[in-house]
């Protein structure tokens, strides 16, 4: 088994996707002025959400909606609610973060990183493993609940709840109607409606160039992650770094535990594990700035983008794949 992981991990490490991430990291560590304009980075992320949402929807329209889809979505929601509680407990034990910081970080780990998901999909592809199309919908369903758990944790542990009601009012709508959720779900639904015919029309836009775009996007993520790591060195206490590696593995096990009774394919299990293992870096940070402004953004951004994202990208996904294969066979 170790051999498989190692082979997988090595192959994974030498894929263009990872290498471009590493290039980005390296460039920012070397303080090169290489950068992707903000508008271009946003355009890339719109493309990715559009493409994976649509393809997921087409896959579902192809195989039909069934009880497993509903169960998986529910499982995702429950996991997204639950994982922050575990993460919070772990953080209080492993680190010296304040209640607010710990809750904010915990919220990130309950939610998901769509790029990690996409990277896992492409590892599955290269292994010839299929997965359920509705995993994309599960990803979308898991984005938001964790944020509520984080806020509940703060309230529960008596930290400053000084948020004026006026501010909190719009928050829930803002979280659920976050641009990336809307685009992902919207594209998913459109994919479901238009099905294979729709896909045929736009295939050469969303399928064939996908991996190349992903490389560029990961280059940018490497640049941003590296910049974050550089400027947040002081934040990275050993306990936190350890948490950033332990938590995804723990999360993936929870995901595996859920996927077995549901009966997901090996590919589907890997994706659910990856969703549980990954930490948000788009939707949750923005929500936290509004809802928990006292939480230190350089802590949660560095954890999510600087530690857990690279871990999942390089070692995590191959590990989850190995685990799922073992459990599935």
């Amino acid at each position, binding site marked *: 088994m170790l051999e498989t992981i190692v082979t997988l991990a090595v192959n994974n490490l030498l894929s263009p996707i990872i290498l471009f991430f590493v290039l980005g990291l390296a460039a920012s560590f070397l303080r090169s002025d290489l*950068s*992707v*304009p*903000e508008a271009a*980075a*946003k355009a890339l*992320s719109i493309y990715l959400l559009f493409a994976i949402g649509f393809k997921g929807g087409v896959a579902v329209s192809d195989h039909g909606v069934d009880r497993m889809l509903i169960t998986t979505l529910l499982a995702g929601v429950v996991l997204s609610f639950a994982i922050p509680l575990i993460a919070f407990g772990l953080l209080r034990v492993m680190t010296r973060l304040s209640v607010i910081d710990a809750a904010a970080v915990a919220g990130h780990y309950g939610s998901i990183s769509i790029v990690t998901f996409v990277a896992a999909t492409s590892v599955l592809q290269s292994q010839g493993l299929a997965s359920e199309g509705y995993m994309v919908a599960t990803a979308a369903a898991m984005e938001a609940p964790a944020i509520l758990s984080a806020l509940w944790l703060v309230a529960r542990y008596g930290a400053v709840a*000084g*948020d*004026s009601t006026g*501010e909190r009012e*719009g928050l829930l709508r803002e979280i659920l109607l976050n641009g990336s959720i809307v685009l992902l779900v919207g594209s998913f639904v459109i994919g479901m409606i238009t099905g294979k015919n729709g896909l045929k029309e736009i295939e050469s836009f969303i399928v064939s160039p996908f991996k190349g775009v992903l490389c560029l996007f990961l280059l*940018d*993520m490497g*640049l*941003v992650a590296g*910049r974050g790591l550089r*400027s*947040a060195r002081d934040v990275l206490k050993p306990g936190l770094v350890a948490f950033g590696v332990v938590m995804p593995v723990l999360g993936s096990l929870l995901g595996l535990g859920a996927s077995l009774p549901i009966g997901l394919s090996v590919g589907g299990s890997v994706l659910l594990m990856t969703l549980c293992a990954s930490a948000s*870096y*788009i*939707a949750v*940070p*923005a*929500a*936290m*700035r*509004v809802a928990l*402004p*006292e939480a*230190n*953004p*350089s802590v949660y*951004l560095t954890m999510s983008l600087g530690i857990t994202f690279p871990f999942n990208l390089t070692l995590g996904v191959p590990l989850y794949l190995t685990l799922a294969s073992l459990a599935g066979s």
Partner: protein
Amino acid sequence: METNKAKRVEIIIEAPMEGRLTDALEAAGVTGFTVLPVLGGSGRSGRWSREGQVSRAGGMVAVISIVRPERLDGLLEAAFKVVNRHIGVVSVSDCEVLRAERF
């Protein structure tokens, strides 16, 4: 040219709070403001840059509002409520405006 005294308020605030700030300004009767993009900056929470960012979390915007002096207090109170717990800088300077009837 005839000009009139006014106050120029400049608020640098986190991008996710922009909507709340401008809503609060409007609720306080301030209908004129302009939002400028911000590339990066530095403060007590360290340096940051918008390059390559996808999330709005990491960015800021600058909101400029020019008001008659008598409206300044209302504006500042509205702004303060929003900025209070958040990262942000509020500064006010004197200015003269053309076409004062617009303010």
